[in-house]
């Protein structure tokens, strides 16, 4: 009791003290914390919280502590727009988030008009094709990742026919639209094109459909839980064809949820806490410790987003909002300069990201990296 009174007194003091208050740099994260995007958004938010705690513990950015504020978008474009506008009105240094492409599409013009960098978790190909110089990704876009998967299906799995299972939201549809032409280019035939619903619980019918298509391989492009549910259903229906995925399907969360059904799953991994990068694994442990949950790639993205801000600020040596975006554009960030970026990251002038990535397989309940793929334009 006494302690809490003391703590409250200190808190009050620190608010009053102008010196301390001035020093804080305000970052606002606008993300899906409820509605359809809540799981992805919560990971992103946790990654950001972890990054802010790390940075603040080490003295902040240019000596100033970060004050982080999270605004929920309810996965609704209208609300996202309101929240991004609010963030800008309240003087955020940069806008972090959101993760879903629809809400990003609804809010990116606002950040552009205000000439403020918006660092997002979206992977849909279209976001960086609109000539908006203020948007920045934190992961490979689907148009960069899908050719790698298609090549892997052709050469690694040696599949002639593929069944594609995708979630019918902007993430899944975008991935599906990106991979179909790549498969066609490589002479791989799509024998089943199965759309599933976001939040779908029952995958039995979809698994039976895939089984009857009798393809050489199954490409699964779903969110984490749906991936696990699908793998479980596929095992129940006795599907024994290779399951190939992109990042999410091989995530630790999927392995934990699907258990034995995830065994032998293979594919391409962008950001993963199991990748053979010590910083990733360390992040995974810290995340687990703090939130008692396994981080998916969105957690990593959120962590990196804050460190992109840190790196660029220290590079420009001032807190200039427009300058932040200018510094990020075309930059190359190495873990040597900024350990929090974890892996060498090249930012294209349109806001796309280029990085090394991995081919992996699930063996004995663990993601095992088989091969490291180089950057696309090193």
């Amino acid at each position: 009791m006494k302690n809490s009174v003391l703590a409250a007194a200190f808190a009050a003091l620190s608010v009053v003290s102008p010196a301390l208050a001035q020093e804080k740099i305000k970052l606002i994260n606008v993300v899906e914390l409820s509605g359809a995007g809540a799981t992805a958004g919560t990971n992103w938010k946790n990654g950001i919280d972890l990054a802010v705690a790390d940075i603040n513990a080490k003295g902040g950015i240019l000596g100033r502590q970060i004050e982080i504020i999270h605004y929920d978008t309810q996965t609704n474009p209208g609300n996202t727009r309101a929240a991004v506008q609010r963030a800008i009105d309240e003087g955020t240094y940069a806008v972090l988030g959101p993760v879903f492409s629809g809400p990003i599409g609804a809010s990116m013009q606002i950040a552009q008009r205000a000439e403020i960098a918006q660092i997002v978790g979206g992977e849909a190909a279209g976001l960086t094709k609109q000539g908006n110089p203020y948007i920045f990704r934190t992961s490979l876009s689907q148009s960069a990742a899908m050719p790698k998967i298609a090549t892997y299906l052709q050469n690694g799995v040696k599949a002639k026919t593929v069944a594609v299972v995708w979630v019918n939201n902007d993430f899944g549809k975008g991935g599906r639209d990106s991979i179909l032409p790549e498969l066609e280019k490589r002479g791989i035939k799509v024998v089943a094109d199965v759309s599933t619903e976001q939040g779908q619980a029952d995958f039995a019918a979809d698994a039976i459909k895939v089984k009857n298509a009798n393809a050489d391989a199954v490409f699964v492009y779903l969110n984490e839980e749906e991936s696990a549910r699908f793998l479980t259903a596929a095992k129940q229906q006795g599907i024994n064809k290779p399951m190939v995925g992109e990042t999410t399907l091989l995530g630790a969360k999927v392995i934990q949820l699907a258990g034995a059904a995830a065994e032998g799953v293979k594919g391409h991994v962008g950001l993963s806490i199991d990748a053979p990068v010590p910083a990733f694994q360390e992040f995974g442990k810290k995340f687990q410790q703090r939130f008692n949950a396994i981080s998916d790639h969105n957690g990593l993205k959120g962590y990196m987003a804050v460190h992109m801000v840190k790196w660029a600020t220290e590079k420009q040596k001032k807190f200039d909002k427009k300058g932040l975006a200018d510094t990020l554009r075309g930059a190359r960030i190495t873990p040597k300069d900024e350990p929090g970026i974890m892996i060498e990251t090249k930012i294209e002038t349109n806001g796309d990201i280029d990085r090394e990535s991995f081919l992996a397989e699930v063996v004995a309940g663990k993601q095992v990296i088989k091969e490291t793929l180089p950057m696309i334009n090193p």
Partner: protein
Amino acid sequence: MAEFIAYLIAGLATGAIYALAAIGFTLVWQTSQTINFAQGEFVMLPAILILAMVGFLGAPFWLATVLGIALFVLLFGWGFKIVIVDPMIRHGVLPLAIATMALAIIMKEGAKDGFSAEAQNFPSFLPVQTISLGGVSISLQHIAIILVACAAIGGLQWFVTRTKTGRQMQAAAQNPNVALVLGIPVARMVMLTFLINAGLAALASVLISPIYLAKFSNGEVIGLFAFIAAIVGGFNQVRGALAGGLIVGVIDSLAAAYISTSYRLAVPLVLLVIIILVKPEGLFGRKEERRV
């Protein structure tokens, strides 16, 4: 044919769960002429409560299950009636229906913020093996879900029609004024209805969570399908809810197989509209004579 049977069994298993949830709509409708828009969340939450018992109390799973279900029935059977239904029932059905919508938000957000935003594994009490019969892979879990759900609904039907308490409950639900005159303890009987509703929801939760995983957002889909099932089967009959649930489950499964996966959701809804136009009281519902 083998293929068709596989779809059928998968659909029946899902449908059995919809039926358990749909009965909840039926029971609440009978007693209060309102729609509980939180019904899907009623199926979502017990599994979360059980996992929370394991996580926070370190209780063994069976004990956590007992405690979790007891807590749920207390909160959302007894508490739901006392706190939400009783004060509002006199003022027409709409405010109450809206309050259940708000309750759904509270349950969903509470599960997310209080427990986890992510899906969690939920252990199964049922066998999880798959057997192969004539080229069809049959999940024992599916068969077991169908059997348990049908047994529970059969038991309820037996209770309502064959036991004295059950008949009193039915009478209290259908015409409270007459029941009161006949000396039936109406208040207690209505409360019993709500407790049974919560109990069935908890059963559905325990049955389905090993497959669906325990997650705060699961209620949305289950709630919608159970609602469709209740309308299709007829809102005023327990066996209607069972039939409605099974029909909707099977139709959904077959739609995914033979129609279009992206318009899968449309098929049960089109069925619903056709039934409303052709047989408005539902396939198994009682006709309510229109009087002046």
